[in-house]
């Protein structure tokens, strides 16, 4: 087998391992949660079993050994001999972690702590009630030098007989009388005899004395027996091995009779076999309607095969059609759909991500192109009802469909990230001596693959934080009248075109006095700074802030919440925090579903063209002068349906002008920002709605507060995309959108 084939097999194996490990973990968690469905246990068993099977083929002995012990225990569970309650399922979950590590090490190199494997093995062995002698059992299956080695293997042709140097010749007499059950399992004496013939020289005698008259033959019966004299260099065990599959389905005796004279009637066995094989084909070729023979074949294949052997021995002219013509027909049929190849049921394909991305980029260009065409059409003064215009409308619709199709390819459920978290929680809980229950919700929520990939690190960090800093020690929880077991809730949902992920704990909440003290001590805020609770909470996102008095191994690691915040911002997302002392904290991540396009409202602000993401806009309204109320300096609110909503002058916030405009001359966009609060963005006018392709501003220019990204409009101009939340937050803080950070400076 060629090296690249081995590589691709390995790749398939490890991909499959990942799937099996995920299946294993989710199954075990379901069992932990009280799942009773036996199919869950079966699936869990199969997962470990499959990993073991594949690992054996790659001679990953350590993995095989552990999987074997694991599988033995799961088999006990499967057979109902072991109740997967409390402590047992905990052992199983820990074992799943060890197994995952062994797989990872097998793939990426390195080593797993031998003590951990030993401890895991012992724990499992204790459950299955078997001593750790299980090593030997696995050894027997895996190490037998049957590893799938990456070298070209020459397959022997069927006629090759192994040649041994200077062999001793043994003589055996074999008697062989099949039972009916031998035929029932599709074994065939002719094949077995031929196998025997490969071992050396032999003479075959068929005993047909038990064969009744044709009318009395039971199609399922067995009437023939054979006596074979064999001269071979092989041992008796080798001879017996030929009959391995039919052991118990026949009467078999093997007698070694060395020194006995070779039989006088030396038949040419190959010729005999050839006659067996060829005779039926000849008969069928002579028949007018070979197809008509099929029902008979189907009804009595067993006895006909019997007859084929017997009759060929006696009189090679007998009518004994076999199934060959049908075989040829079927073979032709299969050749015709060769395209299907070896794949009978392929439901998914794996595509190189680069190809999808290339497609995605091209679609982005297509969108821009289409927008330009529309623009030109408008400029050329063609009527909206002209054929050009309707054609272009269809083009636009198609472009959108293609784009959605491509984006759907990249969309994946967040499950792949979420399912890594239970293990993390177990590890952190063990390291911090806390009891933690993780609840995940909305695992099916889909988001772009890139977003998912880049979510893993921030989420990992935030969950660590939630357990390490958020949850109290069990004794403190009990003292506070809470359940001993802390709760961490990880949930995902779609909200106004974004994915929102909450990480909530029911711990002590943020200790604001302490956070303030630390921030002051580290010089992050002036000693007399007037801060709201929200502002204090947000201090933890400042670079260099860490509340742990000693850097713990868990959430230390040199990164703080500022890194989390920055990595989320780099994805066009935001992090916010709400905390209630004594009741816990909730971190909320809000991220765009895709990093490629957005539907936006194109607006004019101080002669600039800006794009406001449509997903943040609830409604647009034309403010009447009477609805606007000023209070405290420059702050203004707009009265809307008995509500007062802060009015944010976008032009002023973004620094396009340093005076407020007349609200009556502009348009207000009612938006919802972080935490669900509403604000009204004041712009000078609306140009229209458009789908725009997002071009990163950071990659091409630099980060600009209040601006999320840029895009190219239909007329080729660059327009900035407004970061609504940042602009709103900036206006609330009465300064630049980054005022909290500015405070730190």
């Amino acid at each position: 087998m060629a090296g690249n084939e081995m590589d691709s097999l390995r790749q398939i194996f490890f991909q499959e391992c990942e799937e099996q490990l995920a299946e294993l973990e989710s199954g075990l968690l379901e069992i932990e949660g009280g799942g009773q469905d036996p199919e869950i246990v079966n699936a869990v068993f199969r997962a470990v079993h499959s990993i073991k099977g594949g690992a054996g083929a790659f001679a990953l002995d350590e993995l095989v050994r552990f999987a074997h012990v694991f599988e033995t225990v799961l088999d006990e569970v499967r057979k109902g001999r072991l109740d997967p309650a409390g402590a047992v399922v905990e052992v199983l979950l820990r074992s799943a972690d060890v197994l995952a590590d062994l797989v990872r090490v097998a793939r990426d190199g390195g080593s797993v702590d031998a003590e951990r494997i030993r401890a895991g093995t012992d724990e499992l062995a204790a459950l299955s009630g078997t001593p750790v002698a299980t090593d030997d059992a696995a050894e027997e299956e895996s190490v037998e030098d049957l590893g799938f080695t990456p070298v070209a293997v020459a397959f022997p042709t069927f006629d090759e007989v192994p040649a041994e140097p200077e062999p001793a010749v043994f003589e055996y007499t074999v008697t062989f009388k099949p039972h009916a059950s031998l035929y029932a399992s599709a074994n065939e004496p002719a094949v077995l005899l031929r196998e025997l013939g490969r071992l050396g020289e032999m003479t075959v005698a068929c005993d047909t004395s038990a064969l009744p008259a044709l009318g009395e033959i039971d199609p399922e019966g067995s009437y023939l027996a054979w006596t074979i004299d064999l001269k071979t260099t092989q041992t008796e065990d080798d001879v017996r091995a030929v009959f391995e599959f039919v052991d118990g389905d026949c009467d078999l005796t093997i007698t070694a009779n060395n020194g006995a004279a070779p039989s006088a009637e030396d038949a040419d066995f190959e010729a005999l076999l050839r006659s067996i094989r060829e005779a039926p084909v000849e008969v069928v070729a002579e028949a007018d309607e070979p197809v008509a023979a099929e029902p008979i074949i189907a009804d009595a294949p067993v006895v006909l095969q019997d007859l084929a052997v017997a009759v060929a021995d006696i009189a090679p002219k007998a009518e004994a059609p076999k199934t060959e013509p049908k075989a040829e027909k079927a073979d032709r049929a299969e050749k015709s759909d060769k395209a299907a190849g070896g794949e009978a049921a392929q439901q998914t394909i794996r595509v190189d991500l680069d190809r999808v991305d290339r497609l995605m980029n091209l679609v982005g260009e297509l969108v821009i192109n289409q927008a330009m065409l529309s623009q030109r059409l408008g400029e050329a003064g063609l009527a909206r009802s002209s054929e050009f215009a309707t054609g272009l409308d269809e083009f636009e619709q198609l472009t959108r469909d293609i784009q959605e199709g491509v984006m759907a390819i990249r969309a994946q459920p967040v499950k792949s990230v979420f399912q890594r978290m239970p293990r993390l929680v177990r590890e952190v809980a063990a390291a911090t001596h806390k009891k933690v229950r993780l609840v995940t919700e909305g695992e099916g929520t889909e988001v772009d693959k890139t977003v998912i990939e880049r979510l893993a690190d921030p989420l990992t960090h935030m969950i660590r934080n939630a357990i390490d800093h958020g949850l109290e020690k069990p004794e403190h929880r009990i003292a506070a009248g809470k359940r001993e077991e802390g709760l961490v809730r990880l949930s995902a949902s779609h909200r106004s075109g974004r994915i929102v992920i909450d990480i909530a704990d029911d711990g002590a909440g943020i200790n604001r006095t302490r956070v303030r003290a630390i921030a002051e001590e580290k010089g992050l805020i002036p000693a007399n700074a007037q801060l709201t609770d929200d502002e204090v909470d947000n201090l933890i996102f400042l670079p260099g802030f860490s509340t742990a008095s000693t850097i713990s191994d868990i959430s230390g690691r040199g990164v703080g919440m500022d890194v989390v915040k920055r990595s989320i911002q780099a994805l066009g997302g935001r992090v916010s925090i709400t905390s209630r002392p004594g009741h816990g904290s909730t971190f909320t991540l809000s991220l765009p579903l895709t990093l490629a396009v957005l539907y936006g409202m194109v607006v004019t602000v101080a002669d600039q063209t800006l794009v406001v993401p449509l997903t943040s806009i609830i409604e647009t309204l034309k403010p009447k002068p009477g609805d606007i109320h000023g209070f405290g300096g420059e702050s203004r609110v707009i009265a809307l349906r008995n509500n007062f909503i802060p009015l944010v002058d976008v032009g002023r916030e973004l620094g396009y002008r340093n005076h407020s405009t007349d609200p009556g001359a502009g348009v207000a966009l009612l938006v919802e920002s972080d935490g669900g609060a509403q604000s009204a963005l004041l712009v000078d006018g609306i140009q229209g709605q458009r789908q725009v392709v997002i071009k990163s501003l950071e990659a091409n220019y630099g980060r600009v507060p209040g601006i999320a990204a840029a895009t190219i409009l239909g007329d080729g101009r660059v327009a900035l995309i407004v970061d609504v939340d940042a602009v709103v937050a900036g206006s609330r803080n009465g300064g630049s959108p980054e005022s909290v950070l500015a405070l730190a400076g």
Partner: protein
Amino acid sequence: MSKTILTVDDSRTMREMLLLALEDAGYHVLQAEDGIKGLEVLQDKRADVIITDINMPRLDGFGFIEHVRRDTSHRAVPILVLTTESDAEKKSRARSAGATGWIVKPFHPVKLVDAIRRVSG
């Protein structure tokens, strides 16, 4: 005329491994990912030998073999059971279901071809 082998296994790794080894040995290969799919394939295709796994979702190896043996058009097709269990219980269950022989995983390609020859000539 190359023989057609149907492989039934829920593990993609194993299916791929069998495919490579069998095609290298000159066989034509059909694939199915569990017992139900295996029976579906046999509805309109013919196999000279079937190689099946035991532990599979939906319909396991035992059930699959029993179904094949009940179907008159395939009842005489040799079936090899592919499994890591070398224990006697699995073998005897497979045999009473109608398996012709077995291959113990992990298998060397030569042993695989050997087993096929031993049941189909």
